[in-house]
């Protein structure tokens, strides 16, 4: 019933295809969809509001109106802002200078603390640490027992002097465990505490006492990734009541989008350290903000695709290239560079399999023949630097040498030289004010609209287009002999 965000954005963007620019109302329509998607992913409303406001501000700014493809730019901004909130770079556990490092776990009932304690212990053990599990959940029936079973499964000793089920003092257990760890030289102590419901002052105080008693290096707030709007209140309550240094997301293998991650990170400003999935003791890994951002938006890897495409077609490079062309200084070496950029795009194909609804896109990218780029590369590499700079000197014997050196035929070499000359000629025309399309990405980057706006001929900005794209278009118009004329990249020859 919800449909994923990328589908919805595609719908929103459809109407924008003809436009090169986004108006404020276009942006608002897009943002409404993003708002809805975030809410359906259980990001807390107050967080969504702040977030949308921030994105809107940037989207209305120069950044977007001057961008090559405004619609994509909006999505890009959303992605970037999400990653910023999620903590940017992933943070790792801070180990104490003098062992043992004490890690305390706190969280709601049923958030998965005890299971997580086991996973964390196993992970630390694999990192070469000697962890000790401490059973301080003396509240829930058989929590101590559960930790013991888990400890056995992962081969980590459990410190459990009290049987639990309401009996015993968790604070003194925690205190004793540190002494025990020092004596027995454990390098990490993992303290499992009783789960509590939202706001329970007594248990919150108990957790606080455990914190004071053990002076932990890390207090990890464990939160179920399926939690809804309440995430904000819960996180605040724990932040005020106990305080924590990092967050662990559990049960991320369900189909929950995990908007809670965003809420908690935004409200508390604390980094998310780990994410955990399932009951298998290996189902545990460091947290990656960028992956989570995509997951929350349910965008598959469409954003990585955009990102990579942007990297591949670096705007600055394109500008330099355009200038070169204008000055008639475009060489085969530059041509090779352009080819290699296209090749980078080609590797995107593998990513497409991960993407929802990317069939169209995939078809387009299939037209990039990576082998063909390899062959072109081989030919150019077989030339001397002088030849690369000035292809005019390529006479028959040079061409034969190049063909032999690259394992190709003279016809192939001829065809390449022809293509290059045509491309260079056309680009020169365009660089001087031809009919540029200013694509930020090659045509057929599928779901995203490609602005078709006609620019004023004399405009300086006209030079910032991508030469490879133009070259490709040109050779697409006049396909070489063995050409695959259907290629949107014109790389058939």
């Amino acid at each position: 019933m919800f449909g994923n965000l990328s589908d919805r954005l595609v719908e929103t963007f459809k109407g924008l295809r003809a436009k090169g620019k986004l108006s404020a109302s276009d942006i608002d329509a897009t943002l409404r969809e993003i708002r809805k998607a975030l809410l359906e992913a259980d990001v807390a409303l107050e967080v969504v509001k702040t977030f949308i406001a921030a994105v809107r501000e940037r989207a209305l700014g120069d950044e977007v109106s001057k961008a090559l493809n405004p619609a994509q730019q909006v999505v890009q901004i959303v992605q970037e802002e999400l990653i910023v909130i999620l903590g940017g770079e992933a943070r790792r556990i801070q180990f104490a200078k003098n062992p043992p490092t004490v890690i305390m776990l706190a969280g709601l009932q049923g958030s998965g603390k005890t299971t997580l304690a086991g996973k964390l212990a196993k992970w630390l053990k694999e990192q070469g640490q000697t962890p000790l599990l401490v059973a301080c959940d003396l509240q829930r029936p058989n929590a101590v027992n559960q930790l013991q079973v888990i400890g056995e499964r992962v081969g980590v000793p459990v410190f459990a002097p009290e049987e639990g089920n309401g009996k015993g003092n968790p604070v003194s257990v925690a205190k004793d465990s540190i002494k025990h760890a020092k004596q027995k030289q454990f390098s990490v102590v993992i303290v499992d505490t009783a789960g509590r419901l939202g706001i329970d002052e007594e248990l919150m105080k108990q957790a606080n006492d455990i914190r004071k008693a053990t002076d932990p290096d890390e207090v990890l707030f464990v939160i179920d990734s399926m939690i809804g709007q309440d995430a904000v209140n819960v996180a605040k309550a724990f932040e005020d009541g106990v305080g924590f240094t990092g967050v662990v997301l559990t049960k991320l293998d369900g189909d929950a989008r995990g908007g809670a991650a965003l809420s908690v990170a935004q409200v508390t400003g604390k980094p998310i350290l780990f994410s955990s999935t399932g009951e298998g003791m290996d189902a545990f890994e460091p947290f990656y903000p960028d992956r989570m951002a995509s997951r929350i938006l349910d965008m598959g890897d469409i954003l990585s695709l955009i990102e990579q495409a942007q990297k591949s077609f670096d705007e600055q490079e394109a500008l330099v290239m355009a200038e070169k062309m204008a000055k008639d200084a475009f060489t085969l070496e530059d041509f090779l560079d352009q080819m290699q950029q296209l090749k980078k795009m080609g590797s995107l194909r593998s990513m497409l399999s991960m993407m929802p609804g990317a069939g169209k896109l995939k078809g387009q990218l299939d037209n990039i023949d990576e082998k063909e780029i390899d062959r072109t590369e081989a030919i150019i590499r077989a030339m001397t630097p002088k030849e690369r700079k000035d292809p005019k000197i390529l006479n028959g014997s040079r061409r034969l040498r190049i063909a032999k050196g690259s394992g190709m035929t003279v016809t192939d070499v001829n065809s390449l030289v022809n293509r290059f000359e045509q491309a260079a000629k056309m680009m020169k025309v365009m660089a001087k004010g031809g009919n540029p399309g200013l694509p930020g990405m090659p045509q057929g980057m599928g779901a995203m609209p490609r602005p078709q706006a006609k620019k004023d001929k004399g405009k300086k900005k006209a030079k910032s287009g991508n030469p490879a794209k133009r070259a490709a278009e040109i050779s697409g118009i006049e396909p070489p002999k063995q050409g695959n004329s259907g290629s949107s990249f014109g790389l058939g020859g």
Partner: protein
Amino acid sequence: MFWRKKDNAADQVVEEAIVQELEVTEEVVVETPSVAATQDLVAVELPKRNLTKGFKSVFSRIKFDVENLEELEDVLIQADFGVGAAEAIVSEVKTRAKKAGARSEAELKTILTELLTEKMTRADSSLNLDSGKQPYVILVVGVNGAGKTTTIGKLANYLVEGGAKVTLGAADTFRAAAVEQLETWAQRSNSEIVKPVTEGQDPAAVAFEAVEKAVANGSDVLIIDTAGRLQNKQGLMDELGKIRRVIEKNLPISEVLLVLDSTTGQNAMTQAKAFTEVASVTGIALTKLDGSAKGGIVYAIQDQLNIPVKLVGVGEGINDFGFFDAKEFAIGLVGEN
């Protein structure tokens, strides 16, 4: 209330005593016998258990009027109603307010309370314990950490207090110490328990044994605990189907209760869908409904999936649970005028 065969005469005396005793302390609901109740059956009254203390009004901090219903939408979203349901409710409130010429906050609150009550009231929100085919089997399912075992403990205790003989089947053979946890609840509630013979035994086998034992020991109700599973784990969901089939070879299943953590957000919808598909969920037990305002997702679930909310859990205590009542839910949510 549940229905028991008349020939259980020996117990009945005890039961009546208990019922009378309960009448002193708790209000007893008198219901009219359902169609299934024949002269062979006798009604066993259960104490009324409707809770209001679990709900905290979401409107304490906002003021709303006809011109400013956007805020109402926000509040509903924050109570996990979801964007779609929140929009629908707001537009319905608008329509009704216009029709009634309502303007004041009090009038609007009344409209909203009535609307929610109306939409959430269902005829099938009590437990199906009236077929006469005993023992009544209640299968309890849900994702990890939703509160299945605790809910079972509370429900068992409630039924035992009401005079029923209850057996628990510990078919969660996966989670570490789950069996022990259920055993503790069995002791607390004075119920029988059927445990796996070996660690990690096939849960369907445990369910089968539980059925045999419950029949043999003359239980009124058999409650079967299952391991928590995330709804997208196909293998585990298939296992649930198997447990269901094994039980049904011997006894009809009266209730399949899906335990939902009320703090769950929009994912509760996909949980409900997935569990309904494999286990034909007949009712929802909404847990952890204390503290802050939440649980709005059940509105959407009742509305879209047509599954009634039956039980409500509000805490860790053995008595912290009750039956769902739409009006009280609505009043609790909207707040008294």
